[in-house]
């Protein structure tokens, strides 16, 4: 039965197996890739999808001679990457059938990513799959496999916490701000000083359309540079003007090189008295710029760099804990896909049975048309043709349904025996 159905295979390399110098040789541009795909089509490969991201290059393919096809793919990679086989083959992984299916599901669900749970990978896989469909390199099996992978990725993302809690410090700060204010577009932010991380947080906040931005900096030039980088109107003030400004701002990010507290508890206390809304203070500076005691005031939420880092660590731990559940989902979906895949094995047999019945029907019709039914006009004969077609379809309906059912478990001994018997009965 096996000879009816092509097999699934994959070869690839990732950040886990190959250094960037090797991976970058296999990041083909679309022109090279078109040529690569055209070459692959000439060989035993029936379907193919190429995936390349900054962390991986993988090729999924379908072929009747899977081992030969693997060698062809490796040969093509050698040819197009301009690297000798011995230089990259040791870092190349090859997976077949269930392993290849499971691997793709893991990749799309970002379980194989450098940052587990990151959201970009599924989009990248979708882009490459779209490219493959546009270039007509996919067929029934890879289409089904990739759609299964996208479904699994969605399931893992929505039913586990793997992608829920952010890992980047800047993003955590924004998430906390949203937990306090919900709608950031109505809030205002004050950035005191400048620093890579503080600027990054500000950029994230502007991405979420933060309402008003105020920049307090010793250097006007620095403040103007930040204002132009965030691409949003900003009020620039001096450090001396901070005290008058803080009662009116909702988020304060501080990152100055000062060796004393730029914002003391008293200053914050006074500011809070003049407002009813909470205030979110992010102290990125080392040494700290905001008196830690200010965090004890009600409706004042003070987070320093260590607080944000410890949340990031905890989020990472929670993501890793969720991987068990995610792998369970992937295993279940792999089995579901393989169930469908196994059922394909029966398809050629069904086709052959139908073909055999159709041949008999056509031959008999031709015979009768020449002799006993020659008095019928074309219209009446068409009705006879339709009638025989209907009889054949209805007669075959139950056995074909039975075969399809058998196909879902086509590897079992019973299924194999029954299929063999059918082949013998119909001399297929």
């Amino acid at each position, binding site marked *: 039965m096996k000879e009816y159905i092509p097999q699934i295979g994959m070869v690839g390399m990732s950040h886990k197996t190959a250094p960037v110098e090797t991976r970058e040789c296999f990041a083909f541009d679309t022109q090279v890739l078109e040529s690569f795909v055209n070459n692959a089509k000439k060989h035993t490969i029936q379907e193919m999808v190429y995936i390349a991201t900054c962390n991986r290059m993988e090729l999924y393919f379908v072929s009747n001679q899977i081992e030969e096809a693997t060698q062809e793919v490796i040969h093509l990679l050698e040819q197009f990457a301009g690297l000798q086989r011995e230089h990259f083959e040791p870092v190349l992984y090859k997976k077949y059938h269930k392993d290849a299916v499971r691997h793709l599901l893991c990749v799309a669900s970002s379980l194989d990513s450098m940052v587990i749970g990151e959201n970009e990978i599924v989009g990248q896989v979708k882009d490459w799959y779209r490219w493959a469909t546009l270039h007509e390199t996919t067929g029934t099996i890879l289409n089904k496999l990739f759609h299964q992978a996208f479904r699994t990725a969605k399931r893992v993302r929505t039913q586990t916490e793997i992608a829920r809690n952010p890992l980047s410090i800047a993003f955590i700060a924004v998430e906390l701000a949203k937990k306090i204010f919900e709608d950031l577009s109505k809030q205002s932010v004050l950035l005191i000083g400048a620093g890579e991380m503080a600027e990054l947080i500000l950029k994230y906040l502007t991405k979420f359309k933060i309402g008003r931005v105020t920049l307090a900096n010793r250097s006007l030039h620095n403040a103007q540079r930040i204002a132009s980088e965030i691409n949003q109107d900003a009020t620039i003030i001096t450090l001396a003007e901070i005290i008058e400004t803080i009662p009116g701002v909702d988020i304060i990010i501080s990152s100055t090189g000062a060796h004393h507290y730029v914002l003391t508890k008293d200053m914050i206390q006074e500011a809070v008295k003049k*407002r009813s809304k909470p205030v979110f203070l992010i102290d990125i500076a080392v040494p700290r710029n905001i008196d830690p005691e200010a965090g004890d005031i009600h409706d004042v939420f003070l987070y320093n760099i260590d607080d944000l880092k410890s949340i990031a660590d905890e989020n990472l731990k929670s993501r890793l804990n969720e991987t068990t559940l995610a792998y369970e989902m992937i295993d279940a979906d792999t089995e579901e896909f393989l169930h469908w895949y196994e059922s394909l094995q029966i398809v050629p047999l069904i086709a052959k049975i139908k073909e055999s019945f159709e041949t008999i029907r056509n031959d008999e019709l031709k015979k009768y048309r020449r002799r006993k039914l020659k008095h019928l006009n074309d219209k009446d004969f068409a009705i006879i043709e339709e009638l025989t077609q209907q009889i054949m379809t209805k007669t075959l309906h139950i056995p074909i349904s039975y075969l399809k059912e058998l196909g879902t478990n086509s590897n079992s001994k019973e299924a194999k025996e029954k299929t063999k018997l059918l082949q013998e009965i119909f001399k297929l």
Partner: protein
Amino acid sequence: MIALYILVLLFIVASAYSILSIHKDLPRYVTATKLLMSFILIVLMAIGYCMPVYIAGVYKIHIFTFFYLIILFLTLLTLYMAVSQWNNDYRSLSAILIPLAAIISIISLFFINSPRHMTIGHNSIMVIHIVLALLGEVLFFVAFASSVLYIIVSWQLQKKSSMKFINRFPSLSVLSKLTSFSLSRSLFFFTAGIIIGIIMLFQFYGNLSSGSPKEILMYTAWGIIFMLWLISRWHITSNYYLSIMIIVSFLILMIVFMASNVVITSGFHSFR
């Protein structure tokens, strides 16, 4: 009687599920809570159908009916939340409102067979007055629930708890909006209830006030809610302190309100 015990049991299970939905963070607990609350509503409707209110051409409200109405309105409110703009915050709000309803349902068990009742007369104006006052009260329950949640989220943020836990609750801004929303609606229904009460008194007794202890308590409750609404409206204090004020006011008012209905047996519209 059996239906009432089933109701209390269902409330206890629903409370457990609503708390578990926060604790375990699993959506199936939220679904189970919603299903249980729908079932509770059916049981409540059945109890309500069998409960005599209009006896011998006269409206009579038994002391049990008073508890029943609070439970019914709380159930309707939690179900409304599940289908309204507050659906995202249903999980955390229901974890407070459902256990509160469960407590009231347990208390109500002590009054099932109590003959104490309030005779309202032939007209339905008193029914409207009671319904409006109870609606105001139930909305004050929501203000209480959102204030409790505000304090919890505020503490968690100050304690720098894990985001996994904090994410189970609504944002502070949403909670403060819900507090203002429920306070203003509570005030509206209380005010409407009081106005209807005054009209009714004037119509039937020619007075604007009966001077009964329950009436004084009602005015006090209205005054407190009005004061809280003013604080919220004019941002007189921070949301944190407003939440504390609401919690304290709610607890005091509820204890006095429940006690006055149970203890006071004389005066106009008391359960005698």
